[in-house]
């Protein structure tokens, strides 16, 4: 009955992928499979019956009766040979068959002599293993026993199919639940940010109002601040409202000067992503610095330029961002006459909001602003 010349129509890697898709290896015994091997042993009147699955380096038994093992190495597997053959494989005497005589379970304990195995095949025809019966004496099966063993193997396969369908359904449900959880987090985060943004805008109205001399001045400053805030939010939205790249935040403010023939600004520093809690105040700070430079500083004259430089460093308190805004070539700088919103933002909001250490120096050759701020790594909504 054995035929070694049949070429397989599948690749071993595909066969292993199919086997693993049933998610059955190393699961505990289950009555549905235990009953099938007991029925097989009873029908064929053998002391041993197995549902054997051929894994990469072992054969593993989903169910067994009479053997007392859950798995063996492949060199001990008789099913490995049977699996490669179509239908039912019967070996009346293993000791007499050259392919199995040297199998340790045949030559040594427990001296197996008889084997009959019906291949377990997926609907696509890929063999996974066999439902087999074994005995310690040479013998044969009746036609009725043989056909029953084949039917039982198909029954085992349909239970495997069923459990795979259940596992796939559970995985889909779990994926759907994860999406739902993420959605809830996003909506909550969105709600939080919108409320906070509105409250921030309201505070901006108050602060801009207090530092403006006229309605026109108020309107211009306030509109500029809102559009700067909007640009930072654009960057955050690209990452689900989580982080924004520092370089991009700076470019948002300085972009109008990018086209000039002479370079008006330099951005020097490594790529760094700022969390929303940091991106918004840093964006506002860069906006105030740029506005100030355009009105009074280096960007008010054609020869002036700004150098924005940043470094990342590790301290005992974690990762720190050190940032320096320095103006060159502008008109001589003196101490400002009054504290406007810009200086409030730099000197009070940044320390309060971000635990930043800030220094503002009005050097004659140009304003210098330095900030050292801890980088907190926190995402409220997990990244994809």
């Amino acid at each position, binding site marked *: 009955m054995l035929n070694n010349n049949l070429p397989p129509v599948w690749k071993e890697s595909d066969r292993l992928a199919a086997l693993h898709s049933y998610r059955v290896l190393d699961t505990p015994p289950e009555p549905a499979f235990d009953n099938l091997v007991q029925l097989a042993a009873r029908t064929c009147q053998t002391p041993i019956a197995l549902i054997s699955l051929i894994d990469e380096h072992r054969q593993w038994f989903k169910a067994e009766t009479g053997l007392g093992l859950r798995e063996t190495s492949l060199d001990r597997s008789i099913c490995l040979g049977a699996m490669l053959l179509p239908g039912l494989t019967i070996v009346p005497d293993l000791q007499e068959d050259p392919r199995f005589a040297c199998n340790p379970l045949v030559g040594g304990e427990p001296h197996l002599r008889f084997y009959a195995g019906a291949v377990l095949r997926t609907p696509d025809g890929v063999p996974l293993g066999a439902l087999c019966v074994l005995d310690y004496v040479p013998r044969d099966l009746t036609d009725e026993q043989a056909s029953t063993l084949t039917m039982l193997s198909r029954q085992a396969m349909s239970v495997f199919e069923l459990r795979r369908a259940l596992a796939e359904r559970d995985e889909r449900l779990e994926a759907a639940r994860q999406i739902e959880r993420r959605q809830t987090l996003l909506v909550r985060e969105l709600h939080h940010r919108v409320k906070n943004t509105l409250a921030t805008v309201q505070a901006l109205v108050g602060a801009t109002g207090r530092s403006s001399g006229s309605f026109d001045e108020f309107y211009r400053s306030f509109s500029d601040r809102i559009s700067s805030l909007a640009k930072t939010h654009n960057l955050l939205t690209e990452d689900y409202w989580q982080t924004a790249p520092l370089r991009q935040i700076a470019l948002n403010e300085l972009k109008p000067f990018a086209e000039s023939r002479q370079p008006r600004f330099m951005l020097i520093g490594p790529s760094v992503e700022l969390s929303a809690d940091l991106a918004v105040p840093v964006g506002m700070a860069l906006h105030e610095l740029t506005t100030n430079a355009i009105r009074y500083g280096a960007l008010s004259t054609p020869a002036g330029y700004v150098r924005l430089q940043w470094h990342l460093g590790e301290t005992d308190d974690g990762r720190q961002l050190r940032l320096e805004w320095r103006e060159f070539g502008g008109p001589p700088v003196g101490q400002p006459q009054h504290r406007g919103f810009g200086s409030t933002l730099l000197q009070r909001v940044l320390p309060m*909001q971000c635990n930043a250490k800030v220094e503002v120096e009005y050097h004659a050759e140009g304003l210098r602003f330095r900030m050292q701020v801890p980088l907190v790594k926190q995402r409220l909504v997990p990244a994809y």
Partner: protein
Amino acid sequence: MITLAGSKRLVLILEDEALIALDLQDELQDAGHEVAGPFTACSAALDWLQTATPDTAILDATLNDGSCHSVAVELSRRGVPFLIYSGHQEDKQLLADFHHITWIEKPIPPAVLVQECQQLLVACG
């Protein structure tokens, strides 16, 4: 205990959004009050409360270091009236054990918030 003469009162601000806190501070100061803080974390407010007591307080419901519950408990113990200024309806659950809380939804004009504060002070003498 710090008490101030006349209508000038000491208002504690606990709010982790610096811009909002500073705007509120300006508004309260414009209305003639003194401000304790603004504190951005409960721990900082509790430190301050070790040596002083405000006449009233404005608390954000959720701070960087968690819910304002601990500060609310301490203020209640001293009979200091306070109001919660929050953007989150769901924060109410965190403070469910306070029955007579004045709850104000963010955002509202700071002037209205200052009025609410003054009403609290009047109601409590």
